[in-house]
């Protein structure tokens, strides 16, 4: 079946979503990322892999953290980086997504890192770029955030190398979360046998079980014997309304406290894609506690993004290496 993310020889063409990527490609990215973890610890934190290439961060939706990590990753690969915060302003002036993209193509960028509030925006842009440009999805609506999914499984692999013998639980707002979708696909592709989601029904998408997860609605049974806990961010606008009665009630039922953490395995690790709502989805004592690997996630995020860019930047375009 046609896969817009792969070249005809099966190598990575764009990174748009984890869904549909073969295990071989995920492992290639993760193994490449291992080689970049050391780079940050050197005096000179640069490798020349993308020298002379231009990476363009096009953020139709504002984000400082994700954009910064992509920028650091690109710079450590010696690429030139352009940041474009299109936000909503350009669009309100009447410029379409394609106008923006066409302008950047005309400036001879080599790689687009794209974030957009609409699901499918990265696929849409990927369909309209010439062969020499690769698109990396840095988050599209509720759909996918593949580099986040990859850095999360990279982190899991570092702490729990035996992926075939793990129980992982995702907790919180799966419905609106592109991170959750990417995590689920990354975990199942890499062979994690049991992926759970724990949330109230208002925060779960329809037929979520068909994504290959087990569904739980309470923390005690959901966390039992779990090795990895992946917390999801709860957006402010979901806290009070028809989805949830209040942030306090959410914290009481689904917030990760030391007590609830004790339901999981004693050596379970706790992850969060950030930014955290302390006291809403996670208690500070857990976020800062000994089982938390939240800050290493950020560090690994740069190595994983470097790996994705290095692989796409080294792509064989038009027969020339």
């Amino acid at each position: 079946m046609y896969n817009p993310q792969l070249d005809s020889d099966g190598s990575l063409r764009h990174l748009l979503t984890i869904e549909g990527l073969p295990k071989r490609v995920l492992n290639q990215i993760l193994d490449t990322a291992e080689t970049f973890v050391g780079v940050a610890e050197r005096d000179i934190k640069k490798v020349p892999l993308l020298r002379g290439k231009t990476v363009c961060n096009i953020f139709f939706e504002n984000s400082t953290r994700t954009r910064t990590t992509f920028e650091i990753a690109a710079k450590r690969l010696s690429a030139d980086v352009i940041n474009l915060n299109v936000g909503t302003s350009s669009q309100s002036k009447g410029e379409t997504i394609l106008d923006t993209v066409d302008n950047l193509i005309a400036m001879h960028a080599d790689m687009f890192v794209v974030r957009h509030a609409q699901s499918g925006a990265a696929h849409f842009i990927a369909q309209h770029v010439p062969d020499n440009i690769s698109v990396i999805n840095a988050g599209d609506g509720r759909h996918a955030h593949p580099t986040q999914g990859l850095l999360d499984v990279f982190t899991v692999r570092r702490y729990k190398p035996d992926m075939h013998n793990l129980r992982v639980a995702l907790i919180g707002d799966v419905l609106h979360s592109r991170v959750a979708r990417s995590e689920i696909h990354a975990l199942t592709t890499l062979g994690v046998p049991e992926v759970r989601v724990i949330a109230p029904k208002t925060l779960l998408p329809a037929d979520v079980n068909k994504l290959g997860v087990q569904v739980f609605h309470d923390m005690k049974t959901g966390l039992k014997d779990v090795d990895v806990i992946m917390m999801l961010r709860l957006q402010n606008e979901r806290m009070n309304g028809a989805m949830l009665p209040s942030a306090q009630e959410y914290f009481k039922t689904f917030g990760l406290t030391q007590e609830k953490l004790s339901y999981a395995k004693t050596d379970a690790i706790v992850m969060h894609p950030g930014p955290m709502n302390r006291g809403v989805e996670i208690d500070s004592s857990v976020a800062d506690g000994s089982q938390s690997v939240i800050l290493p996630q950020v560090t690994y995020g740069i190595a994983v993004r470097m790996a994705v860019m290095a692989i796409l930047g080294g792509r064989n375009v038009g027969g020339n290496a």
Partner: protein
Amino acid sequence: MKIHIKNGHVIDPKNNINAKNDIYIAAGKIVAVGQQPDGFTANQTIDATDLIVSPGFVDLSARLREPGSEYKATLVSELHAAAAGGVTSLACTPDTQPVLDEPGLVEMLKHRAKQLNLAHVYPLGALTQKLEGKLLAEMCKLTEAGCVGFSQADAAITDTQVLWRAFEYASTFGYTLFLRAEDYYLAKDGVAHDGEVASRLGLKGIPAAAEALSIASILRIAIDTKTRIHLCRLSTAEGVALVRQAKKSGVPVTADVSINHIHLSDNDIGYFNAHANLKPPLRTNRDRDALCQGLKDGTINAICSDHTPVNNDAKLLPFAEAEAGAIGLELLMPLALKWASNSQLGLSDAIAKITSQPAAILGISGGHLSVNADADIAIFNPQQAWKVDANQLKSHGKNTPFLGLEIIGKIQYTLLHGQITYQA
């Protein structure tokens, strides 16, 4: 002008004709089917050997985009598309700009269409002023101006008090209401069927219950107010079941389905194909099969094109931002034939769903080949395959999920009032 259509296979479901027959036309009317009338000398003979001769098709829903959205399409472009698709009568929705809630606008539309003489245009008037769902439109005056029924297009009437009054008022005069059943709140901001595909793609879903809830309210009010209801574009298995049950208990309700929903499902969204962004949304394979079955057992009376031209720019956007809709006038017959062939039915069953059945719903005189009827005729090759190609389509809109696919059934001639309006 006298025309002799010879050697064709005539299929006229209303008159139960399904045989090789010649048709004779004079002064825009059919003067004989079978035997040549005495003294008839044709000015023109159309050789229909190996072709099907059927009543011109009747489409229950086509957006012509005039007035107000001429950048999307024009009356000229879309009525040429109708002729190219063998459609000789069509009902158009009131969601133009301005909305068809004033008799003057309806008269103007009728007048312009009549001048073009490419298809009979039957406007559906707005049920409420500006389609806002608050104040009733002037239904009697609109009927006088040429409206054949009333509709809210894709707008909802959320206030059930208004809905009730609108039904009562329409029922007073025996008007038919053409309603698309969808609960406003459950469907709000949704762009795809609420199920596995939407969950995977991260698209906001519209649950199947949105249709069922709305059908239940509409039918309940229709029973009390004795209003004739036509449900437009069913999309769910549950919707079909509700209509089947209502018909069994004698509720005067009819229903249609679009060419898209009997062949496609939410899987066809693929990688965010904006051409599959439709209203109502494409639902599951199970729903699609139930719609086909409902059509077969008569629960659903007619197939419509739900023709909605959208200009290219409005589709060149991420899925949820793209404007919903697909064109269909030129695809109506081939996709109706495909349904019949998939369902092990004959050509006559397909043709009934796009001629006599929709004509009865609209209460118009077309849709059959009786002697003295207007000579509105479609002549087509039921075996000819063709590729849906943007450059070949007459419609100004090129938006259809069938783009690039091969379909079977090609119009050779379309006649309106005995004049050839299209020739392949």
